[in-house]
């Protein structure tokens, strides 16, 4: 399929993404890949799950197809569907089928957001069968050894209704991601945002303060991603207090009192 071949090339990661390992996750992920085991990444938003996948895809030299799951995601959206083109019904592969055919890494981001009946289609792919049935075509695709399935979810804030089913969970090698240790996080912020050591240190300190408020007014503390955003704004000449306000405190909450309190923290640190 020429169409697919062309498309898959767009998913190749050509330059090395910046990634600082928090622990043994890279070693484990390599071993999982060699043994054809799917990966489950757990962790709060913005702590580096997606970046880790990019890094892994680069290292393994496989294309990476990312699907952001949502509650209207149907099986057809993953596997593929018929479309009408010039009076003819044409089959178009979905991202999952594309990844299986090309031996790529398929990464389902925030998989709990998808409906439960949709997540079931990955079951035969995620165990030792490694096959993907395409009902509408009457086909059964066998995944090549290069193919890898990875899913991510944030156990922190989703409601109980959106918990991952045991039958889904128990097919994966699970890696837990946390916010990086302060020194590592400083280095990440420094590299990604181009700020100096001292500013990175203060940003990480602010993040630690907001994380202290998790479940005490905030549903989640400031993620590494937010710190990088703030740092980039600062590098671009936005004054630090303002950069923190627009990139950290305002995205965190809408509660006015909490915003005022967060603002006080920013004003204390910068």
């Amino acid at each position, binding site marked *: 399929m020429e169409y697919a071949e062309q498309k898959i090339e767009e998913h190749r990661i050509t330059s090395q993404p910046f990634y600082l390992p928090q622990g043994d996750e890279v070693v484990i992920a390599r071993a999982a890949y060699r043994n054809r085991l799917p990966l489950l990444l757990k962790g709060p938003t913005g702590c580096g799950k997606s970046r880790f996948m990019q890094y892994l895809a680069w290292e393994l030299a496989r294309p990476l197809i990312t699907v952001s799951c949502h509650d209207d995601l149907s099986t057809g959206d993953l596997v593929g569907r018929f479309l009408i083109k010039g009076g003819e019904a044409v089959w178009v592969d979905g991202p999952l089928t594309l990844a299986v055919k090309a031996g790529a890494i398929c990464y389902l981001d925030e998989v709990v957001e998808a409906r439960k009946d949709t997540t079931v289609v990955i079951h035969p792919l995620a165990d030792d069968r490694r096959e993907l049935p395409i009902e509408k075509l009457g086909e059964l695709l066998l995944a090549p050894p290069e193919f890898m399935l990875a899913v991510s979810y944030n156990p922190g804030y989703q409601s109980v209704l959106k918990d991952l089913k045991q039958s889904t969970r128990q097919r994966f090698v699970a890696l837990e991601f946390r916010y990086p240790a302060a020194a590592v996080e400083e280095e990440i912020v420094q590299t990604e945002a181009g700020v100096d050591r001292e500013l990175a240190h203060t940003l990480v300190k602010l993040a630690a303060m907001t994380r*202290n408020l998790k479940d005490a007014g905030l549903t989640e503390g400031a993620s590494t991603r937010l710190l990088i955003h703030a740092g980039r704004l600062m590098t671009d000449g936005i004054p630090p207090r303002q950069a923190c306000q627009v990139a950290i405190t305002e995205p965190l909450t809408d509660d006015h009192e909490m915003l*005022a309190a967060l603002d006080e923290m920013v*004003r204390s640190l910068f």
Partner: protein
Amino acid sequence: MDADAISERLRRITAPDVLNEWELEEQAATVAALPEPLQDEVLRHYQAIWPVSHGLAALFLHHLPQALTCLAPEQLGDWTKAALAAYEQHGLRGADLFLAETEKNFLCRLRGESALPFAAALPRLRPYVHALAGPLHDLDLAPATSAATDTATLFLPREIGLFKEERQNFLLYKLLASLLWAQVASGTYRWAPAPTADLIQEVAARYGSRPDEGLPALIAYFRLFPQPALAEELFVLTETVRLLALLQRELPGLMRDAAALFPLLLAQRPPFPEASDQASVMEQLKRHLIGETKVGDANNPAPPALAAAGELLLPLARAGTTPADTAHAAARLYEIIAALPGPYQATPPLPCAISFRPAEALAVRTRRQHEEKTRFITALAALLPSAASPETGETGEDRPPPAARHQEADTALLLPGLAETEIPRPTVLLGQGLETVTIDNQSLALPPELQRLGQRIAADLGQVPPEYVAAAAGLAGSSYHPHASSPITEEIVIPPTPLTYDEWDFRRNGFRKDWCLLHEKEILPTKGTFIETVSRKHRGLLLRLRRQFEMMRPGERFVRRQRDGNDLDLDAIIEALADTQAGQAPSDRLFVRLRRDQRQIAVVFLVDMSSSTEGWVSTAIKESLFLMCESLAVLGDTYAVYGFSGMRRLRSELYHVKHLDEPYNDLVKAKIAAIAPQEYTRMGPPLRHITRLLTASDAKARLIVTLSDGKPEDYDDYKGEYAIEDTRHALIEAKNLGIHPFCITIDQQAHDYIAHMYGEVNYIVIDDVRSLPNRMPEIYRTLTG
């Protein structure tokens, strides 16, 4: 109006109570002296105040002429409301104080020039402190006369009004809170005499005093000096220098902002001319702390003592200093100052100074250490394999009787390794960083909660003392339970604190603040035949209801002719092809999509449990509730059931039958059966409470269905128009928050008032009580269909 007409109006307002004739005349004269257009308005306010408090009404008129000198006539209404609020918060005396100082208490506040009260700063300050302190220090905030901490609570002034702008006053609050946090975090109170034993010896030798063992370390230290007050003040001053430097490093933004405050504080500081040299150097040091750079001038050069003091204080600003360094510096400083001519007079404290409470801190620390120790030992012991397990060969008979075991275990806490040698104990080692524990050479990860606890203990004591671990090992070896002998950890059941709710007073067109107390109560479930009887009686109806409600259940369905979807819509494609053949533009809606309907409904049934429902009414309500719950169990809507009753404003009661998130089960059924008539019907507080509960729900449609048999009424003056207006207002508040109220009533006279309360279409009057069980599920279906 002339005085006579006014007297007449006053008489009518105050009836049936009567005022003294002279009082009446005096009040009428006050009103008569007012300009004509104001008189009527004043009398209206008087009328609103009179039923609240007769005394307040008199005070209102008494202070009015004075107040009108600075009040604009259109501010009169707000002024009256503020006075009523002051009365409700602080009583008649408080209202008197408020009314007497209109300028300060009312107008300044209107202009935003008033002091910032603690309560107003708290919402911002609390998260700030929590974020700053982190999980290691669990700090609370409380108002007090001065800023201080006992390491568990940060005490802050009741209000700060040193500056004109609210922002500046808040900044001082923030600075004080940060200083107190620094005090806790940098271990001011952890300073034990041990590391500075030589200093204590030195000071004791110099002044010929002896340390008092019975006192907290710091107090004992101050007492070593001939002038303990001076020693304490110097210590506070020196420590403040150290803590401010720490804040400068940790929170540079805060200190930059605070630097702008210091000149203002300096300008406010009263001159201190007639002072001895000792006091004057102290004062200069304090001024220096808040940024005074000018020391001395040509006529009056700076005393050499001050320069020496400055040199002593300088090293304290460096990173890595400890409270022990403070103590050293303070002792040197004491020598310098005590050498100057006295006497020592205390100078006023700095507004940004924090005071010391070593005794309280010690008490808190002892209590916390004890609690943490018990918790740590119990939690760790729970991790350890029990040494008394059958493999070790020990049987129950070999064990000492329980009482003896307790004693032994207690001894084990004190003397590890001596007691209980006959019981084989695992060897337990805590890993580095408190992440693991090694038991008999087996490494085990510590659960995060225990890790945190261990870290807290280590932060407090330097390390987790080995005897804690030994005690845990001993505890795992015996079945000793520390809770059995330790009264501190006994659980005390605290009754839930009542919630306060405002009440609407239509006469003054304002709220009575925190007027009602709502108590949440449990209904004791009864075992009886009620549920069985009802199920039998309404068997046919139940079956029908189940079928009807099943049909309303959310389902999945295919919607055809969509632009995008899961599958092709064959009919649409054929049509489109035909259209193309016929030369018409084909439709692009060629897909089918699966759609799931969700009933996102949360409904609260609020049942009137007043005494008037006694008998048939109560039974009918219970039957209909049961049928309703059975039907809803089929449908799957979220719902709650509460009953309400009470007597007077301080005892409004809400009976819990089923919460929104609680499953429907036999216990709920038994509680429905136990619903029984109680006292009166004060509708406002339960409605406001339910509104609050429902606001937290994220359902798309939120409903309050009230089951009632009459007008709202309570034992006190909550009746008639007042009660109806308050209920109406509570319902309006609910509607404003997107909650839909509905009333099912059996009161035949309800048409007179209920439309006014609920709105034209939001109620239904049931003619025959007996038909209620039949009608209610039907009403619900129409409501939510």
